[in-house]
């Protein structure tokens, strides 16, 4: 007993020593300073309760997706027609079953993988495409700028989901095509941001300095302009994730994203739509999942912006 108390007090002491080390005003090494800066960012983030809730949900989502086979009580594809449309709370099926007797909880758990897959890929493709187009337009100027920005304007002139629908219809239904379609509709805002950043960066002295060393346009864009645009793009990405989830779910609901046996949340809602008056849970449960996750992404994005945005005034 005394032993345990001693041990825990020792733990507390070492923890406060670590805290002291992290909060020092006079870092002793480069790594120390970097760790301290990170810790201070984390403290700032932690003081934002809503963002912490968002982070909690996100971590839970990632863990659920990673350990889906261990967590799911049933196979998401296993049908059991004798137990169809069981209400939530039935023993063995906490969230009930759908029209083919598949366990809704298991399907939601497996569906989180698809959601994360779509979000991750779109969040990789769209900003990169936008970054390339925006920086080239901003750096080249003149005719190239006008041409690329008018193309961007054309993309921005369509409602996002309608344009994505048109692309999926042209490419054929399926998750991969849905990802391509969502990326194709998501890049224009990134291109706009990257171009605006490029316009301010390209006239700065250090760009003039590399130019008078004899650097060509490709090296200037990739080596000197991209790294400076990335911080504002990351902030934008975190705020965009919820929109990506909704677009993916919307395509699934319209039958153009993931195809029926797959437990994609949007597709699950569309299956449940037929029974929505008598068996509300079939459509509601995936709807709640979409709501929770996009809310989490929004809260997290907001908190991250407060910490990451370089243009935010430091107090």
């Amino acid at each position, binding site marked *: 007993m005394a032993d345990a108390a001693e041990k825990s007090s020792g733990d507390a002491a070492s923890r406060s020593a670590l805290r002291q080390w992290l909060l020092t005003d006079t870092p002793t090494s*480069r790594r120390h300073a970097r760790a301290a800066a990170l810790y201070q960012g984390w403290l700032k983030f932690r003081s934002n309760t809503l963002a912490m809730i968002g982070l909690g949900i996100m971590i839970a989502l990632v863990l659920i997706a990673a350990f889906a086979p261990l967590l799911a009580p049933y196979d998401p594809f296993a049908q059991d027609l004798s137990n169809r449309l069981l209400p939530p709370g039935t023993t063995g099926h906490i969230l009930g079953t759908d029209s083919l007797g598949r366990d809704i909880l298991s399907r939601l758990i497996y569906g989180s993988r698809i959601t994360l897959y779509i979000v991750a890929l779109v969040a990789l493709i769209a900003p990169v495409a936008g970054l390339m187009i925006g920086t080239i337009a901003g750096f080249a100027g003149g005719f190239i700028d006008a041409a690329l920005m008018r193309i961007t304007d054309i993309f921005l002139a369509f409602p996002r989901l309608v344009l994505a629908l048109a692309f999926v219809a042209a490419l054929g239904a399926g998750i991969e095509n849905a990802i391509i379609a969502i990326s194709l509709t998501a890049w224009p805002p990134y291109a706009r941001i990257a171009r605006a950043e490029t316009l301010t960066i390209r*006239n*700065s*002295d*250090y760009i*003039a*300095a*590399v*130019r*008078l*060393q*004899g*650097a*060509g346009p490709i*090296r200037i864009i990739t*080596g*000197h302009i991209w*790294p*400076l645009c990335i911080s504002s793009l990351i902030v934008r990405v975190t705020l965009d994730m919820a929109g990506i989830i909704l677009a993916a779910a919307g395509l699934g609901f319209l039958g153009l994203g993931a195809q029926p046996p797959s437990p994609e949340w949007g597709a699950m809602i569309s299956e449940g739509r037929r029974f929505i008056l008598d068996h509300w849970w079939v459509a509601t449960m995936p709807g709640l999942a979409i709501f929770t996750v996009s809310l989490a992404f929004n809260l997290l994005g907001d908190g991250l912006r407060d910490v990451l945005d370089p243009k935010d005034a430091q107090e």
Partner: protein
Amino acid sequence: MSLLEVENLEVTFPTRDGGLFHAVRGVSFTLGDERLGIVGESGSGKSMTGRAILRLIRPPGRLTATRIALAGEDLLKKSEIEMRAIRGRRISMVMQDPKFSLNPVMTVGEQIMEAYQLHARASSREARRRALEMLNAVQIRDPERVFRAYPHEVSGGMGQRVMIAMMLIPDPDILIADEPTSALDVSVQTEVLRIMDRLVKERGMGLIFISHDLNLVASFCDRVLIMYAGRVVETLPAARLHDAKHPYTKGLLNSLPRLDAPKDKLEVLSRDPAWAHPPPSSAP
């Protein structure tokens, strides 16, 4: 043959009412293995002259000249890609303020290595070794540490020495220094100048030193061009600066306090618009 010949250089900018503003008008000079100072007040076209040699005038500015030749090669006839091989490799330029002329998101070492690798096909290990050597040459005490530092982590004087290292690492024939010390403290100015002077001498380069500080230029350069309103009004050997004939140069000299000839009241520089036009007597 001289290293650089510039003949009848003109830089013009269109003005809003459709006219033309002449930033540099008819500047001609030659540069050998020497230190040439270009002095003038703000807006006299001295920086534009430096940039024009590298053909880096931003549009809508326009550059015309009868001849700009580097060791006999006409730079005006070169394509943009050929010019890139000349910038940095054969003519390079140190800019005014290291706070703005170093990329804030790249470490000092990466930037020096890049400057070297742009022109020499070298492995990154070789480039690293050369960069550290160069940092040593500009008298940075702990090159390993500065190599890994970001520009905001080094002081102004150090930043300018890094800039000099960056510009000298491809071993150019001509270095253009555009007010390299005006953003620095007086205490580090001389140090930076001494380092630059030593490196330029050791490597036998031509130096074009652009400044508004007449005394500094006089003590540091072999020959001085005095510019006013885009025109060279007088060329003098630095040692004979005080025998200047042109009223503008005299005015500049008289408006500076001198320890060896103290005055109660310094002269105020009076400018004559006629200086902006070529003197009639110079026509043969």
